[in-house]
């Protein structure tokens, strides 16, 4: 406990130092300002609240087409997994001897699905899908997992509202946990 407190004080002091050094203009004068347009082009992070989700929308129906065209070759026609991870199923298996971790059974936030597919998938051509198609294929994967109806359409409002079944099963790091 005592150690925690010291560390917290240390952090506060560091933050003040870092901020004051910057405010006093004591920096090295290295680097140039990043413009809003430059930041917007690179900042593709979607947090769990869905902040920064782009405009656009996509339906489960459209997602079925996108998936067949761009994803099924590695993830299987129904997301059952092949060269790429299994994307569907596994609910109820996490506490068994053979846990199956998928988007449906394990992922805490649906927003991460948009973030990850846009930045990293399809693995052979990342960042090639339109935002509409990323919404659509995310909707399709969630539908395959029973988390969205077949007539669903996802956009910046609807995606963060999808509640993932495993959301409350994550805990902090209690280590050291042995001895």
């Amino acid at each position, binding site marked *: 406990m005592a150690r925690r407190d010291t560390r917290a004080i240390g952090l506060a002091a*560091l933050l003040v130092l*870092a901020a004051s050094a910057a405010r006093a203009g004591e920096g090295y004068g290295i*680097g140039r*300002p990043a413009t809003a347009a430059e930041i917007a082009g690179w900042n593709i*992070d979607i947090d769990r609240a869905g902040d920064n989700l782009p405009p656009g929308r996509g339906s489960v129906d459209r997602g079925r087409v996108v998936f067949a065209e761009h994803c099924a070759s590695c993830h299987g026609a129904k997301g059952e997994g092949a060269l790429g991870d299994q994307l569907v199923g596994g609910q109820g298996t996490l506490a068994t001897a053979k846990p199956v971790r998928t988007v449906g059974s394990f992922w805490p936030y649906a927003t*991460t699905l948009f973030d990850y597919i846009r930045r*990293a998938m399809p693995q052979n051509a*990342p960042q090639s899908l339109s935002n509409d198609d990323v919404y659509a294929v995310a909707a399709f994967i969630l539908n395959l997992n029973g988390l969205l109806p077949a007539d669903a359409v996802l956009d910046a409002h609807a995606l963060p509202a999808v509640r993932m079944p495993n959301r409350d*099963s*994550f805990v902090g790091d209690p280590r050291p946990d042995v001895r």
Partner: protein
Amino acid sequence: MTDDDTGAATRPPSRREFLRASGAMAGGAVAGGLAGRAAAAEPAAPDAANLPPNVPEWMKAPGEPMGNEPYGTPSVYEKGVVRNISKTLKQYISASGRTPLQDLDGIITPNGLFYERHHGGVPTIDPAQHRLMVHGLVERPLIFTMEDIRRFPSQSRIHFIECSGNPVYTRPYGKTASDLVGLVSCAEWTGVPLKTVLAEAGLEDGARWVVAEGADAAALTRSVPIEKCLDDAMLVYSQNGERLRPQQGYPLRLLLPGFEGNMNVKWLRRLKVTTEPAYSREETSKYTDLMPDGTAREFTFHMEAKSIITRPSGGQKLTVRGFHEITGIAWSGHGKIARVEVSVDGGHDWQTAELQEPVLTRALTRFRLPWHWNGEPAMIQSRAVDETGYVQPTLQELLAVRGSNHFYHNNAIWPWRIDAAGEVTNGQA
């Protein structure tokens, strides 16, 4: 795969040289009393013409001219010392290759043998076209060129990096030290403290996390607590004196000493200061630790204290009775190694091993214990204790708490079994 460590100008050895090389490698190892895997094949007899009292042939003619090899490579007789890369992976774009720990000495991993783990392949990045963007909760969002980064005051430090899945908890257990824990390596890194760069941008209120992103095809993203960023985190551009290897993030990588390898984001292009973590795929779907009750631990950053005997170790063979040095490596993400204990009797008695200086924080530490093998079966193992007093646990102790679905952060003691013939195998198998 390892196109980084082949000097283009190297003359390929002739068939004769090559045959001689394999013979000498095996012969030499056996003469030392410890045979490696390469020597398991029939050792070729050394050519008597090169042995005393004769003068060896390489003294009777000049050797290769200077400059034959502008970028030096190991002796042709060391061709077998390469990364341990599985031949049966489903795909090699998101995959790992291991350091051959049992073939190395000291604490520094040669750059060509540093373990690799990529999630979208290894990008080829022109440093002149690489940029680092710092934005989010900062007073001045900034963009840096690589020249900019190198203008900051620099620092060099020796630290290990270890993949958190090293090894997993389930069978089959690896045959060699590399199979088991080859996803750890150690280098001297040069770069700029991250806190210096963050101060340049100026942190705003609410700055609690820094989200780091790589410029690879996975745009790999991890969130780092601000405490670490303002402590010993670095932005590094050099590794063991030369620029980073592409497999290690050329031209720029985040270094978080003692934190799981995946967070040490390679090909670093963006740092976003935030209040909340990103909850990226790599910190939710992966790099979380499933417990027997179905809950999962998240944000498990530290690599806890660990050690492994690298000689004698699995796949090797003691060919003579008598003196053998037991040696290995120990490390802890929580600081310095305080002590390493070695047991040669299956874990009943433990002796304190000698630690080779320097013993550095969050770096590999080499340990040694002199030992006489009497030719009887033995079980040898090492146990690390770090400066916090933490003691490396057994696999059984870990499994009892975490279960075998846990996947990451297995830092178990790993015993090697030596049979009467001197063959060394995995003691858990």
